[in-house]
């Protein structure tokens, strides 16, 4: 019985010793791994910092080169800032020019135009005077058949004709030209 107790105790001591050895090995391995990790971490940090420095130097170099091109950059920025408005104005202007030329071309000799306005729906309100009925007829004929180089007239309404003895004939005409709202570009 005594012998068996000693044997058990011996086994226990052996097991403890083995555990200690194993624990020691694991601890050493862990320390070694952590040291390795620390070195890797420091190296990576160092490498990344060096790369950052190189990138900063390159960026500074390119910034210098860009600064030397600032004159051309100024010009390009200036042009591009104005381009959008200029483009809009040119588009509107071309349309306006065509309308003005068409209205101008419609008027026969002797006619007087007090003004023309373009309302929100794109209709053009013409108002003016003609000296006689023949000129008014000529005006309406020109509206019916405008010249080839002018904008096509999609719709025309004579909204007012007034005449007093011995005075000129006053007229109001509403026109809808091609290329506007609902019209086709000629």
């Amino acid at each position, binding site marked *: 019985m005594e012998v068996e107790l000693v044997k058990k105790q011996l086994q226990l001591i052996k097991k403890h010793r083995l555990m200690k050895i194993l624990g020691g090995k694991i601890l050493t391995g862990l320390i070694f791994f*952590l040291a390795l*990790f*620390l070195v890797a*971490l*420091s190296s*990576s*940090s160092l490498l*990344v*910092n060096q*790369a*950052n420095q190189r*990138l*900063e130097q*390159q*960026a500074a170099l*390119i*910034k210098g*080169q*860009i*600064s030397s*091109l*600032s004159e*051309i*950059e*100024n*010009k*390009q*920025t*200036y*042009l*591009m*800032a*104005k*381009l*959008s*408005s*200029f*483009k809009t*104005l*040119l588009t*509107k*202007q071309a349309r*306006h*020019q065509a309308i*003005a*030329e068409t*209205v*101008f*071309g419609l*008027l*026969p*000799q*002797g*006619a*007087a*135009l*007090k*003004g*023309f306005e373009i309302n929100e729906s794109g209709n053009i309100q013409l108002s*003016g005077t003609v000296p006689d009925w023949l000129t008014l007829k000529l005006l309406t004929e020109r509206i019916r058949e405008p010249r080839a180089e002018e904008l096509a007239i999609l719709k025309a309404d004579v909204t007012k004709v007034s005449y007093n003895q011995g005075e000129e004939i006053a007229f109001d005409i509403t026109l809808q030209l091609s290329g506007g709202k609902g019209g086709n570009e000629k």
Partner: protein
Amino acid sequence: MKNKRLLLLAVLSLVIAGLAFGPGLSRLKQSLTLNRQLKEELKQLQFKRVSLEGIDRNLADERVKNMEVIFPSQKPVVQLMSALSQLAVKYNLIFSGINLQPGGLKASEQGLNDLKFGFKVDGNFTSILQFMKELERTAPLMKIDKISLGINTGPYISEAQTLVSGGFEVNAYFQAPPKSLGNITAPVAIVTPDDETVLTNLFGFTQFPVILPVAQVGKPDLFAAVQPEQP
């Protein structure tokens, strides 16, 4: 008891590891973020440099000069007067009755300003038509807003002699240039083929020289002694 001790040991190890490696890991993370940002910035800068190097200096210079004449940065009153009077002379028209409205200025969202003005021209029918056609292709940029025409004729007046009185209300435009270039990494705007087409219009405008008095007129010093004329 033994398990508790092991757990405590594990937690303690983690805390120690965190304290030891935390700052290092944090610094590495920051460096990597900075690295990504720097790479991106470098890419933008390289692209900007290549874009700027690719711009034709002479063409840009010409475009800017023409843009400033056609679509000026400041109120183009002197240029307008000069251009209109010279355009009228070109077509043998009598230019009169100019009416400026400098108070009617308001900037749009894009910073576009307009200057309204009216004037009268008298001449023959063809000349006025040609004047009108060229007006909107004359620098500075103008747009006819309203027209009133009086065509005076009679049975004994030929078409060539017909006197036309034209009253015009015109808008001229100007826009101040951008105040700054912005960030150095901001990309430079590239001209698209569509923009190129618009920019070619800058070379189709009639430009008249601005006539300004250059010689001093009158007496420079009002209180100077009058020199007697030499016999």
